[in-house]
């Protein structure tokens, strides 16, 4: 079997198999996001500002998990639109680094007359890491999804033209 035959077979296989790589990467991204929002609960919030930031973050987490799960199911079936949405969610995760973890880093609030850091350095590193991992999974999954969806669409089109 030539390399070209191998490639054709690999493409043809995609007609009947799911894009599990992208789907699993989306699920992994959700897992890292869960780790992220668990770690932000450790914050000592003594000001409305951080309360609102964390509240908004929790709200976004709910929307994110729903959207990421839908993306997981969509890319599994080679739907390219979901791959683009997945990429957007990945970029969103990167953007979030500059909202809660970055704005809270080094911030000090007074809780019961005691000055306390909102976030420790360790907590900061953990939240940034989780968001980065989540974003990386989403972007990688989206890239795989786009490449595979396009390849499959081209293969199906060639099969259709051959049949016609």
């Amino acid at each position, binding site marked *: 079997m030539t390399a070209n035959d*191998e490639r054709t077979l690999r493409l043809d*296989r995609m007609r009947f198999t799911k894009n599990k790589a992208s789907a699993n990467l989306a699920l992994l991204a959700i897992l890292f996001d869960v780790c992220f929002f668990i770690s932000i609960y450790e914050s000592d919030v003594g000001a409305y500002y951080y309360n609102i930031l964390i509240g908004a973050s929790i709200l976004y987490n709910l929307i994110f998990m729903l959207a990421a799960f839908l993306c997981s199911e969509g890319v599994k079936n080679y739907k390219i639109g979901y791959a683009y949405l997945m990429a957007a969610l990945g970029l969103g995760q990167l953007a979030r680094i500059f909202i809660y973890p970055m704005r809270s880093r080094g911030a000090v609030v007074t809780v019961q007359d005691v000055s306390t850091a909102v976030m420790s350095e360790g907590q900061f590193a953990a939240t940034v890491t989780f968001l980065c991992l989540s974003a990386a999974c989403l972007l990688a999954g989206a890239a795989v999804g786009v490449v595979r969806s396009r390849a499959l669409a081209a293969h199906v089109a060639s099969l259709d033209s051959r049949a016609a």
Partner: protein
Amino acid sequence: MAQLSMQHIDKIYDNKVQAVFDFNLEVKDGELIVLVGPSGCGKSTTLRMIAGLEDITAGRLLLDGRDVTATPAKDRDMAMVFQNYALYGHMTVYENMAFSLTLRKENPNVIHKKVLAAAEILDLTSQLNKKPAQLSGGQRQRVAMGRSIVRSPKVFLFDEPLSNLDAKLRGATRREILLLHKRLKATMLYVTHDQTEALTLADRIVCMSMGHVQQVGTPLELYDTPANRFVASFIGLPPMNFFDVAVRENELEGKGFSVPLGEREKGLLRPYAGREITLGVRPEDVEADGEIGMKVFSNENLGMNTLVHGHIGGVNTPERKLSAKLRGWCDYREGDEVRVAFKRCHFFDRETGDAIREGE
């Protein structure tokens, strides 16, 4: 492909119930053998022993000369198709068919080629992305067969695969199995209680009753020259009529009728002169316009034929009951008198039930 040899196989369950007695059979390469018999006769048990799903209590099972009696089912290189399909509901048709090869960690491209080839054979190409729940019973059974085909096993085993299908689909799927056998030229063992399946599919039939093999032969042999009364009654629809008759010099004398004997029959029945034997007559061997009077109690028009049930001499007793498959469309009413003749007769020893044949 493969040759299968079953030598003196017995099956005794833990509760001491013996399901199979001294089963012997040589299956040739590419042969389609049908095991037929009523429920509880041991046919499925025999098939499961061959598959390795049941232990063989005594005897030997050889596959291509290699003793596989104690070999685990997974190492026997046999594929079994079950009555209830046994498909994975959460997997697509493609995934179901590819599953066994995926477990074996075969190259995905090789798996793909095998699945597509099997789907082509079974006309399932357009269904590959569907889940079993979206398929009809016949299509599901074809998927189950496809799952066996992709493995390229030495022997295919079918355990009543058509029992869950309606009559029309059963006929269509039966023809597909026959075509599949011709195409693959594979060794197949097929279990059924349906004699129509047995007669239409088999190269050879193994007729079983109460765990014993009653007769092994081609469909025509079983129909035409049944070895005993059980086979005669089991093969053929409607079943054969049986009468106890006395052997006289020139005729057989039954209750309310007599049948003249030809020279060949006279010679055959000479050892039974003066004794009683069992006379067997197939309904299709009964013809109108004869000497035997039958009082009709039911008339079933089948289109080309009419199935007429009645009692010889008009006496309503079980031993005088006669079914006749008469040619054409008849409109007999209950109580009508019909004169019939027996075109062809079978003779059985009354004590043993064995067929009385020349040279025995």
